[in-house]
């Protein structure tokens, strides 16, 4: 009866070096150990960067991740500016923050939808993604593209936000806020979600510190780190907002942090749009030469701190670019959050750190080595969804 089974889950995951392949070791329903195997998406970006100029490098790092596609450029520009001692114009600061926060909005909504999908709440998925579309429309209005915005460059931003566009943007933001508020209220009051996510996959504060976790993963465990506050770059020191933290460290706390952060983002964008009306001037300074030396830049991406280290020898290309994406330190925390939980909960715990799971859905084989039975990722999802069904039934809820 008590046989151990190894369940492989994966591979594929979209950040720089982080497609992942999990091996869950289970005993009956309970997970006793987890091994993560990454590298399926290793595209050698750090090496390619050595053959790009500083201007081209921004386009390359933008393509590290399509969801954080302005976080890496901001961190990269911060690093180049730190290296060369460049101060960007105030107007550029506001535009950077606007794009950065719009990205946080779309990313958090995307995650909330996928989280719903994983626990068998497809209603939540469709609902949230429907309301994510207006944010992408705002992106299209500001940058000209839905993803891969190409807004950042060392020394400032590439495109201005015209004064005439601001009222329309504010209006779009107001409408999006109403929708997000409705979704947030619905999600946080939902008894099924609470039953399913509360007390699941707890990451304690000490463990978060020990594993050097960042972003919402750390903040949900009561570690109040946020690069935007700790090292106010762009316009984050010029506007009023607060860090959202929770103490419980479970999956529900991570949902709460992300959803509440959406409102802080809206607050920041609104203030930045106001300031743009009165702040005139250039949107970029001319960067002529990058001196030899080292620079470090970081940015609070939706998933946590994105870190870039650049070394230059005085030529127009970097000697070395080191990128640390937030999932790189958040993912190993599954070593403490998953063991002890049931297999049905493993999917949502792994998804809770927001490792862009939409790519993880295929090529999944679950093999029961002893009995030779093959499982698939969908079987795991089905287990996860069945659990939601059971909880709903117990509570006497029978919609869908």
């Amino acid at each position, binding site marked *: 009866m008590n046989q151990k089974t190894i369940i492989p889950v994966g*591979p*594929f995951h*979209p*950040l720089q070096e982080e*497609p992942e392949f999990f091996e869950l070791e289970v005993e009956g329903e309970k997970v006793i150990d987890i091994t993560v195997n990454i*590298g*399926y*998406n*290793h*595209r*050698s*970006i750090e*090496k*390619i960067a050595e*053959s790009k100029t500083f201007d081209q490098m921004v*386009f*390359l790092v933008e*393509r*590290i*991740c*399509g*969801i954080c*596609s302005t976080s890496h450029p901001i961190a990269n520009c911060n690093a180049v500016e730190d290296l060369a001692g460049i101060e960007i114009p105030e107007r550029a600061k506001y535009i950077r923050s606007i794009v950065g926060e719009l990205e946080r909005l779309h990313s958090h909504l*995307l995650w909330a*939808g996928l989280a719903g999908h994983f626990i068998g709440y497809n209603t939540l*998925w*469709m609902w949230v*993604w*429907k309301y994510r*579309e207006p944010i992408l429309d705002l992106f299209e209005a500001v940058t000209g593209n*839905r*993803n*891969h915005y190409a807004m950042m460059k060392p020394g400032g931003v590439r495109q201005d936000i015209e004064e005439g566009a601001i009222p329309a943007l504010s209006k779009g933001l107001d409408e999006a806020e109403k929708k997000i508020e409705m979704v947030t209220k619905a999600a946080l009051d939902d008894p099924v979600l609470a039953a399913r996510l509360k007390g699941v996959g707890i990451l304690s504060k000490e463990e978060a510190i020990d594993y050097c976790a960042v972003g919402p993963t750390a903040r949900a465990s009561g570690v109040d780190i946020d690069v935007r506050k700790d090292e106010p770059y762009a316009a984050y020191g010029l506007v009023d907002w607060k860090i959202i933290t929770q103490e419980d460290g479970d999956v529900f706390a991570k949902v709460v942090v992300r959803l509440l952060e959406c409102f802080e983002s809206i607050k920041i964008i609104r203030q930045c749009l106001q300031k743009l009306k009165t702040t005139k001037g250039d949107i970029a300074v001319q960067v002529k030469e990058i001196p030899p030396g080292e620079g470090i830049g970081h940015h609070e991406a939706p998933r946590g701190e994105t870190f870039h280290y650049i070394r230059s020898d005085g030529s127009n290309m970097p000697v070395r670019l080191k990128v640390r994406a937030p999932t790189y330190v958040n993912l190993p925390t599954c070593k403490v959050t998953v063991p002890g939980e049931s297999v049905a909960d493993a999917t949502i715990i792994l998804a809770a750190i927001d490792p*862009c799971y*939409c*790519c993880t*859905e*295929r*090529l999944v084989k679950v093999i029961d080595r002893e009995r030779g039975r093959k499982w*698939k*990722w*969908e079987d795991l*999802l089905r287990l996860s969804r069945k659990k939601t069904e059971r909880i709903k039934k117990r509570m006497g809820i029978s919609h869908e």
Partner: protein
Amino acid sequence: MGKFWALKKSIWVFHMCTGSCNNCDIEILDCLTPKFDLERFGILLVGSIRHADVILVTGAVTRKCLPRMKLTWEQMPQPKLVVGIGSCALSTGIFSPGYNIVGPVDKHIPVHAYVPGCPPKPEAIIDGVVKLVGSLG
């Protein structure tokens, strides 16, 4: 493409990422959500390759992914169609100088439709899929 007529009414797609930046992948998912709603063409995203008629491939094909990609393709039932989505899948795009890149996709498996863009907009993906359906005659 005579033998494909059976797929005309409802194509089931499977989505495979072989080392992309995830942007094409979220746009594919976006196609299925209310605003674009690919399901009105009978297109359904499935979780298992054994149920699929079409694979949507994204990404520049990394060395570690290559054997998995081929295996997935081999496991797919006949008749099979492949759609390459995004610049990386078509030409390896910006990642072509990388030491870990062995793509593009059509070097390793036959591709029947190409959707260019970085990333292609959902409209472009829908257009590509509809054109593919139209060609099945």
